[in-house]
């Protein structure tokens, strides 16, 4: 790791101000992505601004039909939260499948979203549930937030302070882990909104990051059942191919995980 300057932020405003002062600042939340990258010397921030102790950024709130997870809330807290388990069990379940227990204790939702790894789990939930990302500057819909591999709508120095999820009628997540890294080789999140709309998002599959899956959405709109996907085919074009899975294999996984997500959703 290159030498850097460590700052612990006390508030969102403090974090933003400290960020602005550094030559090449980076926020540090759980560190479960940034620190491995820095250890490999693939990132060299002059200043790291620690968000993980900013109290106003930690916590979960449920009010009416919205679940709000604050930006620096660790995956473990989301997975364990009674409120989330009750309102959107699929979201708690997704959080419980991220990485391993030690990663979940420290890794945060804000860090995961800001990083937007094409194989990360949370992006699928945001896109399928139609969530909104709140920053210290604005609100961004999930559609507008994800901009492809490791890119988001965030501007330099912008902080994810919270994510709000509308509570769906039904939702389910099924993940097929990469045998080595345990990130999603493909993960599919299915949701039926209270208004009856169906939204389905897949992570780990596409060359352009998390994506909606129109053929599955259409089939489920007609018939919310795993068997409704039997006749669906997912085109392999545009899907990722690597040593762990070819594009046609991933296309199959989108369908099969979609079916299992529907089964999980009930």
């Amino acid at each position: 790791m290159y030498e850097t300057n460590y700052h612990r932020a006390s508030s969102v405003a403090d974090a933003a101000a400290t960020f602005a002062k550094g030559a090449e600042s980076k926020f540090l939340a759980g560190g479960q992505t940034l620190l491995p990258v820095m250890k490999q010397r693939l990132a060299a921030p002059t200043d790291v601004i620690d968000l993980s102790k900013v109290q106003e950024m930690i916590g979960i709130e449920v009010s009416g039909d919205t679940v709000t997870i604050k930006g620096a809330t660790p995956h473990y807290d989301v997975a364990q939260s009674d409120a989330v388990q009750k309102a959107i069990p699929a979201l708690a379940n997704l959080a419980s499948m991220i990485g391993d227990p030690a990663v979940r204790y420290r890794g945060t939702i804000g860090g995961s979203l800001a990083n937007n790894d094409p194989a990360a789990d949370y992006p699928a939930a945001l896109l399928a549930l139609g969530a909104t990302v709140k920053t210290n500057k604005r609100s961004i819909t999930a559609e507008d937030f994800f901009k492809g591999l490791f890119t988001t709508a965030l501007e330099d120095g912008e902080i994810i302070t919270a994510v709000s999820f509308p509570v769906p009628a039904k939702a389910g997540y099924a993940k097929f882990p990469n045998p080595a890294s345990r990130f999603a080789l493909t993960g599919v999140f299915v949701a039926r909104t209270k208004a009856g709309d169906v939204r389905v998002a897949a992570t780990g599959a596409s060359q352009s990051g998390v994506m909606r899956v129109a053929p599955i959405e259409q089939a489920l709109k007609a018939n919310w059942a795993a068997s409704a996907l039997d006749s669906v085919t997912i085109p392999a074009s545009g899907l990722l191919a690597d040593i762990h899975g070819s594009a046609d294999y991933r296309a199959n996984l989108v369908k099969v995980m979609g079916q299992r997500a529907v089964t999980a959703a009930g």
Partner: protein
Amino acid sequence: MSTVKLTVNGKAVSVDVEDRTLLVHLLRENLNLTGTHVGCDTSQCGACVVHVDGRAVKSCTMLAGQAAGCNVTTIEGLAKGDELHPMQAAFRDNHGLQCGYCTPGMIMSAVDIVHRHGGKLDEETVRHELEGNICRCTGYHNIVKAVLDAAGRMKVAQAAE
């Protein structure tokens, strides 16, 4: 350089380190607590797991500065004097270690697993929960046995307290 103050195994310590120092290096290099190991550089093997404020985390994936003000327990701080922690005893009694390199991290993770699940552990849960700890020697068979055994012992110990 910064001064990092924290509590390690019950003792208050103050250490001057470069800001880029990872917690694991503070423990190993500055405090000579070499029981915490480094087995990878991509935060996956769990050889470095310690407890920070009661949670099992990878000390290779935390800056020393992030641990300032925290309470850190390492493998060296687990036993009460000569009396082994039930997890340590269970690892020995079930032959849950061979070369011993993954063992400190395994034990620290395992203690945390039992804390979270209490006596409700079964083999499948233990295997799943050990996802972040790689052992090359044991094939995990006896590690799983040790964790289940210790879960029972810890329950008994808790009931006795």
